[in-house]
């Protein structure tokens, strides 16, 4: 069962904030976040390894709630360059290199 992301799509104006959620019906052992800009390869953003962990990268940060089996990606003061599809991924089994990815969230930032 793949993780479900919400919202499925979101449109923002530059400078606005957004939250993308990744929820799983199974345990999340760790969470990867990727972004795919239109016509480009998905690119790794960050990994959260432990429950309660929070990470930040520029104005993009993420949290991981192991008990709730969910992770959230926070985009603050969004820029045009943030537009793309975001997706989360998690190992199918702890320690494995086979991942299952979320349903994806399309984000568009308007000027």
């Amino acid at each position: 069962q793949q993780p479900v992301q919400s919202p499925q799509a979101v449109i923002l104006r530059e400078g606005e904030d957004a939250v993308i959620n990744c929820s799983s019906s199974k345990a999340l052992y760790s969470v990867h976040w990727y972004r795919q800009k239109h016509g480009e390869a998905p690119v790794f953003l960050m990994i959260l390894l432990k429950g309660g962990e929070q990470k930040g990268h520029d104005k993009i940060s993420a949290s991981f709630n192991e008990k709730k089996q969910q992770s959230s990606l926070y985009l603050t003061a969004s820029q045009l360059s943030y537009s793309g599809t975001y997706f989360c991924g998690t190992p199918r089994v702890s320690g494995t290199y086979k991942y299952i990815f979320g349903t994806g969230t399309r984000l568009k930032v308007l000027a």
Partner: protein
Amino acid sequence: DVKVTQSSRYLVKRTGEKVFLECVQDMDHENMFWYRQDPGLGLRLIYFSYDVKMKEKGDIPEGYSVSREKKERFSLILESASTNQTSMYLCASSLMGLREAKNIQYFGAGTRLSVL
């Protein structure tokens, strides 16, 4: 700079044709993956390979096969293309690391396949 290259960005094929999608990585990664990407469904794993000539089925292997004769190259084969295989196909590779921090996947830009 790490690189995963997919041979074609766009392909148009006819129903029943045999289709080959090629992927090459230059990072000496052990693991390689083929995914299918559809709106609302995200990335779904078709096949996975962890070594030369080794493969495992993913979630949606029906209608597909793969070949890995060399470490750097992983091919996806549609034996007899059908219209429901029209999709974006993404290849990825990763290290075979015991620590999950090493299991970052590096993706190609994708091949958009249309089957008419």
